[in-house]
């Protein structure tokens, strides 16, 4: 067995996990699985309660304390419902689609470091199922496979609305995964490693949210797009596409899609925490206390940070209306990707400068900043102002308390009298007035 590299260096966690006995790996896998399923149940409850509060209604409050058992009851009910398969469905693909969408969601969580080195039954290990040298790519790969579930579900259902949903989903993923990947590259540039454990330990000096704010914003936006959550829930837009890709699904298969959506939310929140919020490290004032980043306590910090992201997910859903499809695509291709490309080049240039010339002195930074601001102002001045069209801005005249029509209102001429329909046997009975007309004929 290779000797362990010293703690804190890249590859330490990897070596630490590599000599886990098999029982420990199994324990970890089961624990992560249980955590994700539990988080799903809890998130459904939390979402309904929080959105309920935002809409000034109680939300589920009947089963268990604070309605906590509601999602458990719903889940059991869902499992016992009849499983319906449409006649036109493609049998094999229809069956396998929910599985494809669920499994990667769970797998991606394996590379998330939940905590530092701990001892479980006398065995030193890290709180992480696996630490690959390319850990963060696992997350991207899993999310790109998981989308197949959604796309295939829509296609295999054999009806138009799910197909539309899956078309949207495919386009959405292709466009938003680019922005997601580019924003991750910024972090990788600074951490110097693709391994999630190394990224966390590289943030000892400061979280990347402060160092790479643009990457963080782009990541946070694409993360919502990637999980199909409001305001980007176009593949299942229930006001446009009935249920979107899962319209034809029922029973356990539908439950799997539900599970996948929430597990994806949890996983991506965990990834965002790992990449930008310092993973399991304690937040600033607490981090001054010695020993706070050791043992099992960091799991608490990790879960807390994760819940911040999860709450924002819920908050967004309770606040923002769904975007129109073309607006969504425009945001992805014309805003997020160019912004993150420019940002990526900027930080790469900064890195090179720092490597070549050592640390940059503060006056140089200020001068560069001043130049950038001046250029931005000049560009802003050169852009033409949007002309305000002043029609329809006149207030309607008000007499007393009643709005009255303007004095120069032209009453439209009467429309030509409608042709009476030649009575046909197939004409449908309409409401009373309509029938009256028919009787009259």
């Amino acid at each position, binding site marked *: 067995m290779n000797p362990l590299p010293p703690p804190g260096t890249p590859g330490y966690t990897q070596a630490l996990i590599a000599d886990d006995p098999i029982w420990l790996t199994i324990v970890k896998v089961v624990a992560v699985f249980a955590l994700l399923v539990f988080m799903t149940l809890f998130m459904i409850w939390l979402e309904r309660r929080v959105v309920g509060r935002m809409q000034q209604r109680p939300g589920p409050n009947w089963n268990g304390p604070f309605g906590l058992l509601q999602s458990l009851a719903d889940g059991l009910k869902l499992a016992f419902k009849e499983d319906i398969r449409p006649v036109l469905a*493609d049998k094999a*693909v229809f069956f396998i689609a929910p599985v494809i969408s669920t499994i990667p969601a769970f797998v991606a969580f394996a590379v998330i470091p939940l905590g530092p080195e701990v001892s479980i039954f006398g065995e030193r290990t890290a709180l992480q199922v696996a630490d*690959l*040298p*390319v850990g963060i*790519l*696992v997350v*991207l*790969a899993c*999310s*790109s*496979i998981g*989308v*197949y579930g959604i*796309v*295939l579900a829509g*296609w295999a259902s*054999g009806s138009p609305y799910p*197909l539309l949903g*899956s*078309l949207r989903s*495919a*386009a959405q*993923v*292709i466009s938003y*995964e680019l922005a997601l*990947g580019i924003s991750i590259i910024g972090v990788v540039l600074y951490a110097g490693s*693709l391994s999630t454990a190394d990224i966390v330990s590289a943030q000892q000096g400061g979280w990347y949210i402060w160092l790479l704010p643009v990457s963080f914003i782009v990541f946070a936006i694409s993360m919502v797009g990637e999980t199909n959550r409001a305001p980007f829930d176009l593949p299942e837009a229930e006001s446009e596409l009935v249920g979107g890709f899962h319209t034809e699904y029922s029973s356990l298969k539908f439950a799997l899609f539900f599970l996948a959506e929430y597990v994806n939310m949890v996983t991506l929140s965990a990834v965002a925490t790992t990449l930008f919020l310092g993973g399991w490290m304690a937040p600033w004032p607490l981090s001054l206390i010695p020993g706070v980043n050791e043992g099992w306590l960091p799991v608490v910090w990790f879960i807390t940070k994760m819940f911040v992201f999860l709450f924002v997910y819920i908050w967004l859903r309770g606040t923002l209306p769904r975007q129109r499809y073309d607006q969504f695509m425009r945001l992805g291709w014309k805003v997020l990707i160019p912004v993150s490309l420019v940002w990526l080049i900027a930080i790469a240039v900064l890195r090179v400068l720092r490597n070549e010339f050592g640390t940059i002195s503060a006056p140089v930074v200020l001068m560069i900043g001043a130049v950038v601001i001046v250029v931005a102002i000049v560009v802003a001045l050169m852009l033409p102002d949007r002309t305000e069209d002043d029609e329809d801005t006149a207030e309607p005249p008000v007499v007393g308390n*009643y709005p*009255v*029509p303007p004095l120069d*209102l032209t*009453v*439209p001429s*009467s*429309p030509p*009298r*409608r042709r*009476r329909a030649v009575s046909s046997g197939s004409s449908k009975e*309409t*409401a*009373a*007035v*309509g029938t*009256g*007309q028919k009787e*009259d*004929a």
Partner: protein
Amino acid sequence: MTTSIGEAIGFWILGPIALAGGLGMVFARNAVHSALWLVLTMLSLGFLYMVQSAPFLGFTQIIVYTGAIMMLFVFVLMMVGRDASDSVVEVLRGQRVAAAILGVGIAGLLVGAVARSVTASVVGATLPTQNTGGIGLLVFTRYVAALELASALIVVGTLGAVVYTFAGRAKRQTASQRERVVARLQGPLEKYGSRSGPGVFATADSVATPALLPDGSVAPESLSEIIEATARERLGHQTELAHAGDEHDASAHTDHGHRVTGSQA
């Protein structure tokens, strides 16, 4: 060069799966099934790379080929339609012959390359310790010209596709949302519109509420063909329909607040 046991096991599991994926792609009837078989092949190739201790390459294969390129394929297949079947009519003349020749040629090239790598002793390239860094170093130093050429080709191809797509299409005058709403309200919906005339105090503004003539009967012109009118009971007292040919003295009737659509006095 020897292969470790783990590598051998991985190969003998993943190799047949990849092969099955390829065969399935060729023989599947349905275009989407074909694409899915190809996805299987790509996935197992990715895992093969990982087994051969090239995790970066493996995951990139999965992300790029499975995640992006095959997703584009599936997207296009869905756009074409679920029931679109393959046409057996040869569109390009000599396509089959050309395809056969090129296919045999590529097969020959591949066999030659594989045979050479099997028989000739592999020059022991010194592998960099870090997978990702090694690839990055090679790509941006030694092979930078090839990489730039390939990316230029891709960009030209993309631009060409865009140009072809928009070539025959005149630049549409896109109306703003506001303009469209105004146009719609002044268009076919105008006659059903319930804008009240001067001096009329409206109590109902719905398109579904028919206008009433001075005698309290419903003006047939105000009934929409596409919307079911309000039920008779809800309109209250007299809602008998006016006779079609009748001329009405249609001075403004304020009871239900509708601009009467007959001739204004």
